[in-house]
Each structure stands twice: as C-alpha cells, then as structure tokens.
C-alpha cells in the first residue's frame, strides 16, 4: 500500500515538473527573477575581489581564457555605467547584448501575445559566421602578441 502511495506521489511530482517546464509564463518569470537577482548581486559586489563568484573552471585548469572570461567583471562595469571598461574586459559580450536584448523582447512578445518579432539573423551563413567569430575570438584572446592582447580580460 505504501509502495503504491509512493508511486502516485512520484507521478504527481513528475506531472507537476512537466507542467512547470511547459509553462512558458512561469519559466519567463523565473528567468526574469533570477536575472534581476543576479544583477543586484553583481551591482553590489565586485567580481574579482569577492569569494562570492566561482572561478572559471577552464581558466583554473588550463590558465587559458575562454570566450566568457571577463563577462562578470564586464557586466559589473556596465551596471555602473562604465562602457569602455566593459569593452576592455569582454568586447564580444558587449557586442552580443543588443542581439540578446532583441531575442528577449521577441520571446517576451511570444509568451504574452503568441507572436514573435521577425528573425534578424535568418540566413545560415550569418549563424555560421557567429560560430566562427566566437572560435577565432577564443583563440585570439590567448595569443600574447600586442594587438590581440586587447581582447584578453
């Protein structure tokens, strides 16, 4: 009897999880709440001087920079209105923000109105270009030669 009860409890949990995962509004507000919380913490505490932030595992293991190194410090600088400092930490992060903002706006419209904004990047060639840019950027920021060292955080 207890076994059957456990099974129904598990099934209820599974059904509940599935509903939560398929609930676009719930996911939207969850993402928004997490982002805002992250922004508040990031505004208040400076990365690089606090143990609050985890170190990049790739950088800790290899000593090399990944495409995301400098993102937290860059976002902290952006939140304090220092655009040039942010560009110095991670230029690709700053450049990707307008696109991510557009995608977020499009998704917001989809969640509440069921419609999306037109895709700005439609041709596969441009998407491949983004992939190639990220890989080249990853390699370039690890090259210790003068013009490329600007890319390192």
């Amino acid at each position: 009897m207890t076994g059957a009860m456990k099974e129904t409890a598990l099934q209820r949990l599974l059904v509940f999880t599935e509903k939560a995962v398929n609930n676009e509004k719930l996911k939207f507000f969850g993402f928004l709440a997490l982002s805002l919380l992250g922004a508040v913490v990031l505004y208040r505490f400076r990365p690089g001087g606090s143990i609050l932030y985890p170190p990049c595992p790739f950088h800790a293991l290899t000593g090399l920079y990944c495409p995301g190194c400098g993102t937290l410090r860059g976002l902290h600088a952006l939140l304090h209105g220092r655009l040039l400092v942010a560009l110095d930490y991670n230029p690709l992060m700053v450049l990707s923000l307008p696109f991510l903002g557009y995608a977020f706006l499009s998704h917001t419209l989809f969640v509440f109105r069921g419609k999306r904004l037109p895709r700005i990047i439609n041709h596969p060639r441009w998407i491949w270009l983004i992939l190639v840019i990220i890989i080249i950027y990853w390699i370039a920021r690890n090259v210790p030669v003068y013009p490329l060292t600007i890319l390192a955080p």
Partner: protein
Amino acid sequence: MECPNCKAVIPKKDLKCKECGTYLPWIDPETGEKRYVPNYLAPSILVTIFCCFLTGIICLIYATQVNGRLIAGEYEKAVQASMNARLWCWISVGAAVAYLFVLVMMYGAFILAIFAGGVLSQ
C-alpha cells in the same frame, strides 16, 4: 495540440510527439502558415559567453544547422537539430549548476574541516 497519429497531447511549443515520435506537419492546418522552428541561437550565445562555453559550442553547432535545413526543405531534420540545440543548452545550465553545487560543498567541507580540526586538536 493533439498528435495526428496517436492523439496524445503535445505541448504548445513542441514539434514532435513524445509518445509515438510523429512530427507535426510543417504547415499548420489551423493557420495555414509554416510552423516556427526555433534555432536557439540567443540561448546558445548566452550559454557560450555567460555560462559553460564548451557545451555552448555544441549548442551553437546545432543552432547553425536549423536554418540551413529549413532552407533546404528538410523540416524533420531541422526539428531534430532544434531539439538537440535545446537539449545542449539545458545540459550547459545543468553543468553550471552542478559545478556551483560542487564548489559550495567543497567550501562547506573546508570550513567543517577547520572547525573539526580545531576541536580534535585540543
């Protein structure tokens, strides 16, 4: 929505039935328009630059395949690539959460060891 094959309920955003594996038709019979196949480009970039980049690269590779296959008219392959892109985005998030969890546990064990050591050495 309802699966045209086995009549199971399909969540609004899905393009493939989880029960029997049937793809919903590319052109929606209700609206007469082609269905939107998400390429997860924005989440892939978010994951690559803000989160766990190694798996983010895999997300990006799948994201690049989606639009190419749609233009070639290979709708079902595009849906497969789209689902893989979504899966790898979630794997990246999971990896990041797991990494954070391990770090917190290590900090916890470290602090505990200091306290326990202090007590035992007396």
